[in-house]
C-alpha cells in the first residue's frame, strides 16, 4: 500500500479509534488486495511505510465483497463499480480478503 495512504490510515485510526474504522479497498487483483489488507491489519509486509511493524487489526473489505455490498446504495454501486465485477476475479479477491481477516482483524 502506498506510503501516503498508510499514513492516512494510521492518522485516522489514531483520531477515531480502530473499532470505528473500516478500510475499503479497490485493488485490481488478489495478491495486491491481500498485501493492502495485511498492511492495515498486521502491518506493512514490505517494511516500506509508516505501518511497518504496526498492527492496527482493522476491519478491511474489498469493495466487491458480498458482505459490504449490502451497505451500498445499489444505484451508486451499479454506476461506479458494477462493471468491474466482469473484469476482476472477485472470487480470488474475496478468498484473499477472508483469509487475512480471519488471521489478523481484531474488530
Amino acid at each position: 500500500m502506498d506510503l501516503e495512504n498508510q499514513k492516512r490510515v494510521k492518522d485516522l485510526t489514531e483520531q477515531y479509534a480502530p473499532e470505528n474504522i473500516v478500510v475499503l479497498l479497490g485493488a485490481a487483483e488478489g495478491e495486491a488486495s491481500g498485501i493492502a489488507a495485511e498492511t492495515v491489519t498486521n502491518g506493512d509486509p514490505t517494511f516500506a511505510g509508516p505501518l511497518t511493524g504496526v498492527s492496527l487489526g482493522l476491519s478491511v473489505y474489498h469493495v466487491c465483497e458480498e458482505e459490504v455490498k449490502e451497505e451500498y446504495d445499489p444505484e451508486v454501486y451499479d454506476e461506479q463499480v458494477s462493471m468491474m465485477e466482469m473484469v476482476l476475479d472477485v472470487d480470488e479477491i474475496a478468498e484473499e480478503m477472508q483469509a487475512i481477516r480471519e488471521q489478523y482483524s481484531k474488530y
Partner: protein
Amino acid sequence: MPQASPNPSREGRRRGILIKKTIITPEKARSTYIIDFERQEYRFMNSVLKGTGYVLVHTPDMVIHNGTTQTTERIVNPDSDYLKQLKAHLRPYERVLAYYPNQTYIGNVTPAELAQVDGPWQDLESPVNDRYGAFGEIMPQDEFYLLVQAVDEFELVYLDRDFVAKTKEKLAQDPIVTEFILKRIHEGVDQAKLKQLIEDEGAEGLYMNDVIVGAVRRAHDIDTNLSAHVMIENLVSKASSALALLYAVKNADINPDDIEYTIDCSEEACGDMNQRGGGNFAKATAEIAELSRSTGSDVRGFCAAPAHAVMVAASLVKAGTFKAVAVTAGGSTAKLGMNGKDHVKKGLPILEDCLGGFAVVITEDDGINPVINIDNVGWHAVGTGSSPQNVIASLVTVPLEKAGLKVTDVDYYSPEMQNPDITKPAGAGDVPLANMKMIGALAVKQGDLERSELNGFVERHGLPGFAPTQGHIPSGVPYLGHARESMLKGEVNRVMIVGKGSLFLGRMTNLFDGVSFLVEKNDGPKAAEAAVSSEEIRQIIAESLRDFAQGLLESR
C-alpha cells in the same frame, strides 16, 4: 470525373491555384478538401501516419545507478539484500536482443506472432534476435553513452578516452547515426579527470560493468534544477528521443526539411530555478535530427502525453497549419528497475533494463498511409469522474457512438501496452488485458455485447502487451508501427489508440486523464462517388473568384 493526385499541395503550389474548401456531403459529414484547379484534382485534407520509429537502449548500469527504486534503497536501506542481489539479475545484451517483447517493440515480431508464444517470455529465446528492426533498434549501453555526449551542447558530459576510442568505431557502424552526430563526439579525458569530477564536483558517473567510463557534470553550482542528476536524466531523454526520431524520419521516407513542427511528449522537465519546466526538448531533439525547418514545443500529460501529442500533431496537419509534424519522446532512467524488488524476490531477471523511445511522422494525406481520424476523438474531461465505467465510456464508447460505430467495428484496441512479464510479478496484473476486459464489460453493460461474448471479444480485438514500463512509452502508441504495416497490407481497417494518464502524481490534481482516436486504412484517392463533380468544382472556382474580387472591392 476528378481524380485525386497523390500529393497535390506540393505540385499545386508550383503550378496554380490551390484552394481549401469545406464541403458538407449528403451524409452531413464535413470534409475539407484541397482542390487543385489546374489538374482538376482534389484530396481530402486529412493527416496520415507516414512513418514510425521505435528504439530501446539496454542500460544495465543505469538500472543500478539511476533507477529510483535503487537510488532510494541506497538511501533508506543501504545494506539491503536487494542491492546485493541486483547485479546477478541483470541480463546481458544478447538476452535482451532475444527477448520476444523487445523484438515486437522494434518491429521484427508482430503482436499476432507474439500472441502465439505462451508467456511468460523471459525464459524463452526468440529466434528473431537482430539488433535492428523494421522500426528501429536495440542499442547497447556503450554506444548510447557516446550518443549522450554527442547531444550535449554545454560540455557537461565527459567520457574516458580509451572508452571513446574503442566505442566510436562501433557506433559509426550504426547506419542511422549521422556524420553530424559522430562529429560531435569528443576524444575524451583520462580516468583521473573523471574521478575528480565525480568526487570533487558532484558529477554523476556513467558506468560499464561498474567501471567508470564517464561523468555528467552539474550545469550550475547551486541551482538544483541544473544538478548533475537532472542533467543526466534530461540528456538521456534527449539522446534516446533523437535516436527514435531519426528512425521515424527515415521510415517516413521524406526529406527531413519537410518537417515543420516537432512535439516532445516525454515526462521530463528542463529548465532552471527561474523556469523549472521551461521545456522544448522538442526543438533540442529536432536539432540533433537536423530538421532544419522545424520549430516545436513540448506536450506534457503524464502517460497520456503521446496520445495527446499525436492528436495535436494530426490536428495541425489537418488544419493546414503545418505540412508535416513529428512527435517524439525519449526514455526515463528513473523508471529503470522500478519493479526490481518484486522481480528479484521471485527469481526473475531485472526486466526493466531498457530505456524506450518512440517517434512518428504525420503528414498530409497521400492517399496511401493510414489516416489519423480525429473527427471523433474520445477524451476524459474534468467532469467525467473517476469510476472505470465513466473513464472507459468517455474514451471508448462515447466517441465510437458519435462516429456511428460499434465496439466490434474496431479491429484492434491499443490502450496501455505494458509487457505483462514486468507487471504481473509486481502485482499490477496484465494491463492491456485488464483494459480490454473493461472495454468489453462496458459494452456488455450497454447491451452491445452479450456477457457470453466477452472473452471472445477480448481475444479477437485485444493485443498482447510488449512495451517497457517507461511511463509514457506504453500508452497507446506502441502499436502504431504495426498498425501501419497491417493497414498498408490491407489486413486491418481500423484501430483505436487509447492513452491514459495518472495526473495525481504531480500533486496538482487528483483527476485522471486520457484521450483516444482512431487510425484507419487509407481508402485511396477519392473518386467518382464523392459529392464533388467537375461541374461543382467549376462552381467552387467561380464562387471563390467572386469572393476574392469582392474582398478586393471592400478593402478599397
